[in-house]
């Protein structure tokens, strides 16, 4: 987003990409589950989109795993992202003001609303007409996809107990949009889209930026450190060639860091110098701290009216077509936790994941029939809750092993606490209320179970923005308090995680930040 917005405003940009372009024609999009195995048997491999931790390790304390997913290559994780595009609201931006936990955001909804509007128009987001306090609407949504049977049943059941369920907002094209082709409902988005029918930075931002003639991309450039001059301003970066491991330096007058939360943080922390002994822009000692994502739980049930019925092609736009916005702030009842949760409903209907079969007892012909009868009837409920930012949840590099380029790797120490445990109980209660209202058969579950840390793939907070330079690293324009010509425009800039998926907000914040940066350049301030 930064490269796109700067080049179109006349700024020359060199982009250092830790990988290369992933060509759509290489994606294993139209490969059926059994063909996947046949291809592997024949020695073929899908494109290596997800970074192999053997190539680039990270470490965690013993017994404290963090399931980090990284993509090094053009467009990064947007090649395979979940595409859920929910606007943050003032409930999110001011949460810390209401409950006193950590610092509030330095911006409000009115500051970012025009950028959400512009992002929606640029990338194409489908959604419904259901603006509400916890989930601001948009005038620019593409039509939402029709619901699957199970989703109608969930919506009706939730509504009968006073829980609102709306069409989800996703950056999937349900109509042709800005020269991009609409979705063809093959549901294989997680392998990359072979026609670019959902937003990805590579096709939607970087290709147009290249057309300006002002973007120069260096592929396989693994950035290690931001370099500073004697005035304490950034003047370039040190990087290593991913293939030859050769060291290079490149110089420039401003640096935008957007390597995704964990890698951006690693770069900043490794950029220590006599002037910045604690890492670049880290006089506040917040860089690396306050790592947060969402806690998630998973519940499955079977809708009685769908059991033994017709099997539909339920692929749709791949993943949920409905969403339950946060509501726990509305009834006035005091909770034993702070912040909130929403619910997604991924993998409702006839999907390729049959793990529910493992919870059906027995074996043989009766078992086989029980699995088949339930196949079209699967209801999947998947609440996301905010994990609050805590100083001890942090990324560090001091004392870490060195990677193949001789640069310290990230050490990620992250755990969830009492607030998340308590919130998860209401997350379970809510899913049970909906499933009971649907008269669903419920798969046995353990209500202490949370999905593994890191598996939300939504890392935030380790270079957070705020008003107070003592307690934050960036101002509201993602500009470093300590180093005015460095901007950090990914999830690390977030002050809180919220219950929502971050990409839409990353795009809006990056657009706003680089508008500010281009203005400051014109005024001669950076």
């Amino acid at each position: 987003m930064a490269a796109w917005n700067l080049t179109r405003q006349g700024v020359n940009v060199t982009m250092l990409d830790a990988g290369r372009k992933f060509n759509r024609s290489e994606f294993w999009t139209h490969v059926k589950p059994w063909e996947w195995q046949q291809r592997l048997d024949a020695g073929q491999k899908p494109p290596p989109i997800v970074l192999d931790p053997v190539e680039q390790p990270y470490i965690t304390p013993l017994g404290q795993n963090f399931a980090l997913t990284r993509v090094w290559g053009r467009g990064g994780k947007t090649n395979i992202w979940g595409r859920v595009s929910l606007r943050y609201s003032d409930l999110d931006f001011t949460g810390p003001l209401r409950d006193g936990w950590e610092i509030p955001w330095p911006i409000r909804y009115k500051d970012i609303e025009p950028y959400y509007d512009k992002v929606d128009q640029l990338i194409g987001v489908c959604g419904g007409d259901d603006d509400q306090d916890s989930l601001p609407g948009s005038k620019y949504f593409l039509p939402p996809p029709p619901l699957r049977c199970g989703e109608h049943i969930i919506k009706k059941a939730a509504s009968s107990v006073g829980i609102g369920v709306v069409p989800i907002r996703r950056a999937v094209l349900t109509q042709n949009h800005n020269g991009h082709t609409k979705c063809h409902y093959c549901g294989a988005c997680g392998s990359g889209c072979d026609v670019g029918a959902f937003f990805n930075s590579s096709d939607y931002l970087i290709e147009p930026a290249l057309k300006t003639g002002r973007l120069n991309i260096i592929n396989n450039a693994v950035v290690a450190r931001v370099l500073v001059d004697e005035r304490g301003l950034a003047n370039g970066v040190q990087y290593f060639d991913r293939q030859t491991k050769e060291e290079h330096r490149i110089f420039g007058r401003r640096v935008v860091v957007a390597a995704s939360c964990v890698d951006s943080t690693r770069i900043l922390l490794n950029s220590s110098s006599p002037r910045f002994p604690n890492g670049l822009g880290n006089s506040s000692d917040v860089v690396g701290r306050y790592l947060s994502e969402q806690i998630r739980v998973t519940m499955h049930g079977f809708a009685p009216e769908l059991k033994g019925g017709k099997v539909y092609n339920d692929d749709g736009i791949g993943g949920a077509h409905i969403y339950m916005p946060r509501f726990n702030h509305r009834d006035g009842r005091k909770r034993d936790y702070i912040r909130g949760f929403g619910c997604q409903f991924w993998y409702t209907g006839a999907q390729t994941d049959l793990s529910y079969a493992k919870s059906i007892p027995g074996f043989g012909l009766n078992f086989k029939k029980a699995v088949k009868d339930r196949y079209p009837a699967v209801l999947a409920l998947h609440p996301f809750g905010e994990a609050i930012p805590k100083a001890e949840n942090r990324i560090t590099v001091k004392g870490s092993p060195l990677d193949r380029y001789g640069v310290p790797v990230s050490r990620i120490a992250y755990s969830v606490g009492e607030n998340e445990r308590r919130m998860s109980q209401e997350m379970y209660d809510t899913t049970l209320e909906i499933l009971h209202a649907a008269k669903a058969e419920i798969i046995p579950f353990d209500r202490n179970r949370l999905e593994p840390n890191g598996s939300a793939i939504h890392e935030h907070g380790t270079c957070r923005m705020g008003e107070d330079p003592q307690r934050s690293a960036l101002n509201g324009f993602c500009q470093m308090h300590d180093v005015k010509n460095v901007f950090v425009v990914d999830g690390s800039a977030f002050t809180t995680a919220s219950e929502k998926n971050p990409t839409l907000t990353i795009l809006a914040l990056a657009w706003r930040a680089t508008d500010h940066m281009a203005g400051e350049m014109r005024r001669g301030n950076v």
Partner: protein
Amino acid sequence: MPALASAQETKEVGDQPGHLHAGPAIQVPAPSQPTFFQPSEFRVVDALCERIIPRSDTPGAKEAGVALLIDKAIVAEPARGASYRAGISDLNALASDSYGKEFTALSEEQQIALLTPLSLDPDSPLGRFFALVKDMTIDAYYKTEAGLKTELGWHGNTYLASFPGCDHPEHHS
């Protein structure tokens, strides 16, 4: 280098808006020999998987090649191998104690009678083994064309001009 040039061209077309399916899978004959299992072990696993998901009016685990897929899964994750080796041996011992024959020599009814208590006792060593084989049979069978398409009726991952969604008015709110 004409071959390279034409490969490049294909890529360019694929990166234009419009629909281009990925090329077909290379067709290779499925390997018929297990790598991890000894032939006698393989026969036990093959029979056990077939008891878990038997043939009905659709193929069962044997026809779907589940035991070979489990063999591949063990090769990919060798830590599971020891449980299989011990489990197969214990299952044969139990079959000998009960019927004086190895598991594969039992009739279908005898195999079912032998496995039923194991399926109800997931805490015993053989019960744990049964649960492991059942989980891996599920993972493998329902990813095969026989399991996912023929048995369950899945017909996704295909080009659709539009997504119709649910057509039951009674499901709608």
